[in-house]
């Protein structure tokens, strides 16, 4: 049992095996620029893709003027935003207001760095991974970036000095921290069966055997929890309470115009792409997939598999937006705190038990069932207390005139 996880721990990009010299640095620079450019282009395509797919689902044509099939529409919109007046509201906190877009866009970029895009290749005597960075703390880095993203949203809304952005950002912060707990708990299970925090090790562990993808191996539940939490983290529909147009205008970026607005928009779609890539990495084997034996193309297949799986998730993101109505805020919080977090905690204990042996696993499963029953009891107690506090006057009786004799014990404090 012990020792299976050990070889994976000593991973890391072989590029840095002999220290950093000029050639290595140039390779790093090329990798960074390529990934950066690819991300920008894919964000552009993603926005176009979303608009096209949604318009198809709504029997509209969608953008079709700029370029073939309207594919340059995003570029046109972006260029247009450069020419727009850059307003800073007079009541805003100017420094924070200007800082917030940076804080939103940077984590969105950085989180992609740990995603393994392909296998290991050798170019001009240098062997390296098709992955920007492979730090031993990859998953922690991902969580850190998603936590920093909250600050950008929070500060943007707070510094605007306006009602709707403030409401939107408070909602966004509460939503993001709520789902971060569920997200973190479902990732713990992946780390548990892999025994490493490196994303490369996680991908390699899933490629060892057929049907060893974490989505299947852990039972489908952690995968689903991660997926729901990821949609909520990126505040995409149906969890887009932060920018609920009908109540909050534009949410936290209402006061932003010009390129600052464009950066928020960019960050949102970049987060969508990054999160799709990460769910593929953690649960669906990343670049793992069957490769036909065609000479000189062995490096290409992992990339194609990775792209294909990621595009599926991008489509699902768009699909959710077209198909589902926005949730109410209390439903959102209930789903996060009362469903996803307890379920992922219980499932984590079960996975840990089954890793030791089947008897432990079965015992813990029984324990989790008992705990679930206790939790349902706690929910009903909480709901009963809540309705006790509420004031519901009987039909036809005016509350403020009710004689003292009819006031139920629980009602007095609320009326006072």
């Amino acid at each position, binding site marked *: 049992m012990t020792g299976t996880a050990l070889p994976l721990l000593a991973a*890391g990009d072989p590029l840095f095996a002999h220290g950093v010299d000029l050639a290595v640095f140039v390779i790093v620079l090329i990798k960074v620029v390529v990934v950066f450019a690819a991300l920008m282009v894919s964000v552009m395509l993603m926005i176009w893709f979303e608009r096209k797919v949604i318009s198809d689902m709504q029997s509209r044509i969608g953008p079709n003027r700029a370029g073939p099939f309207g594919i340059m529409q995003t570029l046109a919109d972006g260029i247009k935003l450069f020419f727009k007046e850059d307003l800073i509201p007079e009541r805003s906190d100017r420094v924070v207001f200007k800082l917030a877009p940076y804080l939103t866009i940077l984590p969105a970029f950085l989180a992609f760095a740990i995603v393994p895009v392909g296998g290991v290749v050798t170019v001009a005597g240098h062997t390296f991974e098709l992955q920007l960075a492979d730090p031993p703390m990859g998953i922690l880095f991902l969580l850190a970036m998603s936590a920093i993203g909250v600050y950008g949203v929070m500060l943007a809304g707070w510094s605007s000095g306006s009602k709707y952005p403030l409401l939107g950002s408070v909602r966004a912060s509460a939503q993001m921290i709520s789902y971060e707990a569920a997200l973190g708990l479902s990732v713990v299970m992946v780390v548990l069966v892999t025994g490493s925090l490196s994303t490369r090790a996680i991908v390699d562990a899933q490629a060892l055997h057929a049907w060893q993808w974490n989505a299947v191996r852990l039972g489908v539940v952690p995968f689903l929890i991660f997926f729901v939490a990821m949609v909520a983290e990126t505040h995409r529909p149906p969890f887009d309470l932060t920018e609920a147009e009908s109540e909050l205008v534009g949410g936290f970026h209402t006061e932003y115009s010009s390129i600052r607005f464009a950066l928020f928009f960019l960050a949102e779609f970049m987060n969508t792409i990054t999160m799709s890539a990460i769910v593929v990495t953690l649960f669906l084997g990343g670049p793992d997939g069957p490769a036909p034996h065609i000479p000189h193309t062995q490096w290409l297949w992992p990339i194609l598999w990775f792209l294909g799986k990621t595009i599926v998730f991008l489509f699902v993101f768009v699909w959710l937006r077209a198909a589902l109505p926005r949730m109410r805020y209390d439903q959102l919080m209930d789903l996060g705190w009362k469903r996803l977090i307890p379920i992922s905690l219980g499932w984590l204990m079960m996975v840990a038990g089954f890793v030791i042996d089947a008897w432990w696993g079965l015992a813990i499963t029984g324990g989790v069932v008992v705990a679930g029953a206790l939790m349902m009891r706690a929910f009903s107690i909480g709901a009963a207390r809540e309705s006790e506090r509420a004031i519901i006057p009987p039909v036809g009786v005016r509350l403020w*005139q009710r004689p003292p004799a009819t006031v139920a014990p629980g009602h007095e404090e609320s009326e006072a």
Partner: protein
Amino acid sequence: MDQYLPILVLIVLGLLFAALSFVGSSMLAPKKRPTAAKVAPYECGIVPDIEPPSRFPVRFYLVAMIFIIFDIEIVFLYPWAVVFHQLGTFGLVEILVFAGIVFVSFLYLVSNGALSWAPAKHLERAMPSRTSDSTIARISGNPDPLASGPPVASPDVEPAAAAASGPGQAA
């Protein structure tokens, strides 16, 4: 630490991109000074006369505090998960105790209604002296609309007493 070099380069590139886009925007954007209406907080065209709220429902703060409990739990879970294969049964029992304690605190929170976000069912009226009943009574001249109105649900309130003491009726 070499493994972090690409991340560093990416940070520099990302900052450069954001800074350059701001520079580009400031060069290309119109230079005129915005009017007072433009820099006012956005309020759908209405001149704002109420400050943005400085107080928020306490539940938001409560959620932030509860989050810290779970976040700390997760912080402890990650190192445990990495070395779980080496720890074996000992690690499992340890984490069961730990998760059990966190779960009990979660049960306490939930049964106190700390995580109930549904709107409270307060049906008090904002302006007790003016209701649709009182308006109907005022206009129609019928002094006692509830006497012939719907039956009273609460058995221990006499309809006449409740109605006779109703305010807002035409003097």
